[in-house]
């Protein structure tokens, strides 16, 4: 592909809710959003893939547990294995964990309630497909909205994740303090988002697609999407 406008596929599963929002965010940030359907086995030549938020297949079994078996996921997994940029947001993050692309799992918030709130995130690494344009230590504001967003991992996984610097974002104060007071859901080590070792696969619970348009919310999602578009373009060129 020689196009200078990166094409970003957004998968719609039955029960996806923020798929239109993710497509709009891609378009607003200068990319070209491409709608992908769960039952298709074709990624339509996109340069990056987003698994959006929602309640895929109703999430009646376990969040993301069914979606990982969707026909489109076979292509998504092999796209990621080839190094393609892949972002899972909220339910999409849960799908990536279920698919084994990212470590850990999500359980119910420690309050046992759904929480919709703007939160601050501290950037932990620039080595990921959505933080290339950010500096570790800086903070960004993005909303969360989930009932099962408490990230957990086995002790062994946790050691690996922290040792290898796989944490991309932690819940924090506006000034970057990471503590229990600024942990909305009880996530282990305040983890809000993680990456794979290569950095091309990232999952996060907060919703950057709801943080690109200043008329309707904070703008902390803008640098994430511009980084993703940048990574997509680099992948497409390479």
């Amino acid at each position: 592909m020689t196009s200078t406008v990166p094409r970003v596929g957004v998968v719609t599963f039955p029960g996806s809710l923020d798929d239109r929002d993710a497509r709009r965010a891609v378009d607003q940030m200068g990319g070209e959003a491409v709608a992908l359907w769960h039952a298709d086995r074709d990624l339509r030549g996109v340069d990056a893939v987003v698994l959006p938020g929602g309640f895929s297949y109703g999430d009646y079994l376990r969040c993301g547990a069914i979606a990982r078996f969707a026909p489109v996921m076979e292509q998504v997994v092999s796209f990621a294995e080839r190094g393609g940029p892949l972002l899972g947001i909220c339910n999409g993050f849960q799908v990536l964990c279920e698919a084994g692309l990212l470590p850990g799992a999500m359980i119910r918030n420690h309050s046992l309630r759904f929480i919709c709130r703007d939160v601050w995130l501290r950037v932990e690494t620039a080595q990921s497909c959505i933080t290339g344009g950010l500096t570790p230590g800086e903070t960004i504001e993005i909303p969360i909205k989930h009932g099962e967003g408490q990230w957990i991992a086995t002790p062994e996984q946790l050691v690996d994740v922290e040792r290898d610097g796989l944490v991309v974002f932690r819940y924090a104060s506006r000034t970057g303090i990471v503590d229990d007071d600024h942990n909305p859901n009880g996530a282990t080590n305040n983890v809000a988002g993680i990456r794979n070792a290569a950095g091309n696969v990232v999952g996060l619970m907060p919703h950057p697609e709801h943080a690109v348009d200043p008329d309707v919310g904070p703008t902390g999602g803008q640098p994430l999407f511009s980084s993703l578009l940048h990574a997509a373009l680099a992948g497409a060129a390479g």
Partner: protein
Amino acid sequence: MSPEDHPLHRQLGLTDDELVKIEATLGRTPNRNELAMYSVMWSEHCSYKSSKIHLRTLPTDGPAVLVGPGQDAGAVDVGDGIAVVFKIESHSHPSAIEPYQGAATGVGGIVRDIVAMGARPVALLDPLLFGPLTEERNRWLLAGVVGGIGGYGNCIGVPTVGGEIRFADAHTANPTVDVMCVGVADAADLITSQARSAQQGSLMVLYGASTGRDGIGGVSVLASATLDDGAEGARPSVQIGDPFAEKLLIEASLELIAAGSLEGLQDLGGAGITCAVSESAARAGMGASLDLDAVPLREPGMEPFEILTSESQERMLAIVHPSKLGEVRAVCDRWGLTTAVIAELTQERGLTVRSGGTVVADVPASSLADDGPVYDRPLTPPARELANGEDPTFAPFDKELTGVVMTVLTAPNVASKRWAFEQYDRLVQGNTVAGPDSDAAVVRVAGTLKGLALSTDSKSRFGRLDPFSGAVHAVAESARNVAVTGAVPLAVTNCLNFGNPERPEVMWQLTESIRGIREACLAFDTPVTGGNVSLYNESGDSAIWPTPVIGMLGLLDDYRLRVPSSFPRPGLAIYIVGETFAELGGSEFAESVLGVVAGKPPALDLSKERALHRFLAAAARGTVTASAHDCGDGGLVIALLEAAIGGGHGFAVALAGDLPSHVALFSESASRAVLSVDPADEDALVGLAAEHGVPIARLGETGGPRALVEGLLDVPVAELRDAWENAIPRLLGET
């Protein structure tokens, strides 16, 4: 007890007179299935038999009205070919028995009403009333209802952007659980449930969930009778919701509408298949032949009357020309939804129901849908001459005011409802310009600059003292809430929540409230495009207060000019518009500080109120105001504190005038708002107020960390915020 004491029609909620009327229509004795069908269709919930003659007095016409009452939802034209569809419904009775599912299925039902009009649902608002949180059952009801609203609403991709939560003793036995949904459609694509081009031979396709034994007779058993002891036994009449199926239903329906595949569309809610089939047929001026064997069932062995009256959720009925059946099935298949052709429109006006090849019911379709009984029930004002007790306005009062302010600020009616609103997804669809912490939510219409300003309001404390006044105040406050954002109030939907209409005093409350809505809506040019009536909200001898809930739709031509309710920055001048009188009757101060709901509600001059709305819209258009907040519960001081807490900026003001201090702070005089304005715009603001004949007075400035009312109050905003935000969690024992 012998069957003569409890004949079937009475068990089903039909009166002896109604049975006579059915026999006259049929010219014979109805069989058991037919009785079941009439009982649900002629129930209070479906037929509005007690309220109909009074509802007819409401103004329903206006230049912007596209669809008035009588359809699934009302619709208004907001310009550029865009229609806004909106309606409010109640699910109070089911919620009193099973709060989570009751509230959840209430959301599902109203969303299908909007979809059935051909509109994409874009916003939900949930006005709720409960008994005091000091009682465990009320805490359980609140947690269950809020959980159900979130559990369902958050899974269907429609943001919950507002609503209100109020508390009163009278709602202990009967919580009020209303829900409003707003949708957006191409005006040209609007589907009225009157089948557009339906003709003989058109097919009725049931799609979505299968039909089970849940919600049998929900409208007649639950919603049209009082809840007495042993109401838990009615649990099988509460429906069970599946939001995932609803989400698929929404997407499939909107795809079918956009493709022009349908001749008509109807949701299945109260009274299930009976209602959907008979109404669709009656509106097309036809009959229908319905085959119950074609209905996909959840379990074998269901009786015909169960299939006919089941209120299983997440089902829709499409009217489809036979040539389009294939494409309808293809779309539903793609979304994983089952389809079944269950009926066919016929030239004869009868609704003929078959099961196992034999006719099990045969009645005129229109007799179910349109010929229900209409009652002019006796009404009597209460014997008490509005025995409102001593007016609290004139009670001597000399307590230290800081503590009193804190009491009112943390009163459950006034305190932050963040505990509940954070459990709702207010963001999905990406158009929420202002959410539940604003006087009115503002949702932009995707792809345009238009903003829909939405508010739901009730004033049942005033309504208890004077139902007419309570209704006028409810309409005025909802219009004001919309107006402070800069929007022009456009149209109204209403949910009338009352006790048992067979009691003349309740009927009087109902008619007085309708009279109040009529007067206010006429004065504001806000026609009533639809709504819902919820009666029998009483248990034993405790009826809820007269509680008309008003859902107001306002329009901003440019959502970017929306005026926030909080002080956005320091260094602004603070003004109050409108006049403050000695009016503490029915106020929050009287209830939470003096412990009485007594006196005379504040006066309300509709022309002054209207002038305020026009002034606020003009000020917003001229970008003169930095913030505007309604003065409501708790009066001027609470309005100031809320604006300070929300914005995170303190203020210093001085109150002029000769009212006693507590009256000046807490009076709930109508038609007022607190504004902040950049010093450079002060002259323009004052000039604009004079132009509109609205009294305006400068109170002070924003800035600093403290809330300071000269000589009366001096408290850090951070302390106020903590008290205000944590009051509800503290009552729930969570902090």
